[in-house]
């Protein structure tokens, strides 16, 4: 595992009063420390991503910031209000989209929005206008009278987003907004969030375990692992922080003990990771040069290359660099782990 990055917790835009300021925040459940003294701040109008595998502490962080669970120590300031001391003031400033789909399936789209507008005390005259606007924003206007249970997964997720915006919040928290969506719906949600950012000047903080989502949506990303913040920066900064400009994935038809050692000796190669038998992921400063060397090496040894691909450094490589393992490994593990019982502590 690489050493943690030099983390700058300051906002990218250098604003004096950030929208979100988190200082040495800790969450403990008995002896277990879910979040271990995390610091960061988010500027007004910024989209900030918390990236990490399941169980990294992302949802716990977001729940502390949105007043859902008490903070053990440290503090979180949202729009100038301390979460622990002024939770109601914080709640008025924020919109929250939880991980689960919590809109009532028996109610219509409009009824769901109306109930939440009332919960936020949106005046009656303003309510209708806000509902029309958010329905327009999430492209659900023609579904306003449809019962929520008749909507597709992507549409329901868009309704959740509309619900979080119905009271015109300044800061928008989204906990894994595209989990469970198919790729097409996921891209639609990304486009919608980008549109919202452009039209509403919203500050957004989202959690995700999708590299591509963080890469496409976020101005800055914080990588969270085991309750700590291991890296923070713009997607470009994070990728540049990883030694090696390219990633070469190579698959030999036969596994031998020497491959790892031989690959590490190639010019420009900074790291080699064995993915499976005969399958390696090589970080290199020059993808084309390493590719040539690999072909020559295989030819000289009489081995066959089953596949060979070259790509630029991705956030996956950033994650591997800072945590020593792949995010997709964690996701695969999570598939084989029973989900917690409903109502159990996170």
């Amino acid at each position: 595992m690489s050493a943690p990055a030099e983390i700058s917790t300051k906002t990218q835009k250098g604003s004096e009063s950030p929208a979100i300021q988190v200082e040495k925040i800790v969450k403990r459940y008995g002896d277990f420390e879910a979040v271990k003294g995390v610091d960061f701040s988010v500027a007004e109008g910024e989209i900030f991503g918390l990236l990490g595998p399941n169980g990294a502490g992302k949802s716990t962080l977001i729940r502390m910031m949105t007043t859902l669970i008490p903070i053990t120590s440290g503090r979180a300031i949202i729009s100038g209000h301390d979460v622990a001391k002024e939770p109601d003031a914080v709640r008025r400033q924020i919109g929250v989209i939880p991980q689960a789909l919590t809109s009532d399936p028996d109610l219509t789209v409009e009824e769901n929005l109306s109930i939440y507008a009332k919960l936020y005390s949106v005046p009656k005259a303003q309510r209708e206008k806000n509902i029309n606007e958010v329905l327009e924003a999430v492209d659900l206007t023609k579904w306003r009278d449809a019962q929520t249970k008749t909507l597709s997964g992507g549409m329901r997720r868009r309704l959740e987003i509309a619900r979080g915006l119905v009271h015109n919040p300044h800061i928008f928290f989204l906990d894994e907004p595209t989990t469970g969506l198919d790729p097409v719906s996921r891209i639609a949600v990304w486009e919608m969030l980008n549109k919202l950012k452009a039209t509403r000047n919203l500050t957004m903080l989202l959690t995700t375990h999708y590299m591509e989502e963080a890469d496409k949506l976020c101005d800055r990303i914080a990588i969270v692992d085991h309750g700590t913040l291991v890296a923070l920066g713009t997607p470009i900064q994070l990728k540049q922080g990883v030694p090696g400009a390219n990633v070469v994935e190579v698959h030999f038809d036969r596994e031998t003990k020497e491959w790892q050692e031989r690959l590490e000796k190639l010019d420009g190669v900074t790291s080699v990771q064995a993915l499976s038998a005969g399958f390696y992921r090589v970080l290199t400063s020059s993808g084309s040069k390493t590719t040539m060397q690999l072909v020559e090496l295989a030819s000289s040894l009489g081995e066959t290359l089953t596949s060979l691909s070259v790509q630029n450094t991705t956030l996956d490589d950033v994650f591997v660099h800072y945590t020593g393992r792949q995010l997709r490994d964690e996701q695969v593990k999570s598939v084989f782990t029973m989900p917690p019982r409903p109502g159990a502590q996170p």
Partner: protein
Amino acid sequence: MNRMFAIVEREMRKFFRSPVLMIMSMMVPILQLIIMGNAFGGKIVGAHVAVVDHDHGPQAVKIREGFDAIAVNIKTFTTVEYEDEIQAREDVRTGKVDAAVVIPAQYSRRVYAQDAPEIGLVVDNSDPFTSSSLESEMQLLISALTTPVVQPRLASAIALEIVELYPYVNYMKFLLPCCVALAMYISVMIGGGMLYIDDKARGVHEGYLVTPITKFELVFGLNIAGSIKAVLSGISLTIIGSLTAGLGVIFHPMADLELLCMIVVTSIAFNGMMFLMMVRVDDPLVPRAMFGILNILLLYPSGAMYPTKAFPAWLRALAIVDPFTYAVHGFKSILLKDGGFVSIQYDLLFLLLFGLGTLLIATPLFKRTL
């Protein structure tokens, strides 16, 4: 306040969109009313009684004529002739016949001699309902046989004149107050218990908790909605049950007002109790597991099925703190006796205080965070 009513609005919209809750909450009490009301409290008909006649005299013939009259008229039992007393007793034991009457030798002579004549009745007392019914019929028959044909001008025996205050109350009518209370309990259990915990588990409450709604607004919003659902259930079952059982009290406006008061305070009491029990529960399995246990703990000690005066002391103590006791008593007072507010004042007071008390305890226990 508007936020509290937003919670009520959401719950009620959901309730009317899913009529399953309302139907299910009334299905069990209605079935109980119809099936138990018809199954219990009816008269025993068609039992078989063995007759072993060792006498064959004129008085024995009179008894057998009495048996024939019963078999033809009220049809409680028919007789089967036996020669062997031991066989008759064995057949009672094995269930071939329900009872055996033994008329001993010299019975007629002892009647005429007024020498303490006796008839034997062998009953299967493992079935108390049939045996007590047969005993009762036999007592009536014996009483009729011993009544002098010519009545003395001055009666020497003490007579008991029984005055029934209310029209005949069959078992279905007797069960109705219990069924109304049960419908409200099931509505609260499903609407206030199971759905409340399901919403928690699905994250609906997480959605509420990130809004500026206060703890008071949230608790009272949920409880008002739960109480309204129970009131609707109670009203529906009172009407359906009264019509099914043939009670006309619902057509008296004053009785309707008294019933409405009883239904409202019972809803508050049941809902408060359920909310207190569920306030810290997160697991959806808990209310489902508790359903049957609570039903037994609350319904049976309430006097709905059997008078509380017959209970042992510990069960009577349970009945005293059981809101079902007061609900059943109150409904019985109006539905069966039309007793007015005087007869339900203490029930109303207890149920109201119980409901408010449980809510007062539950409110600080309610967590404003996850």
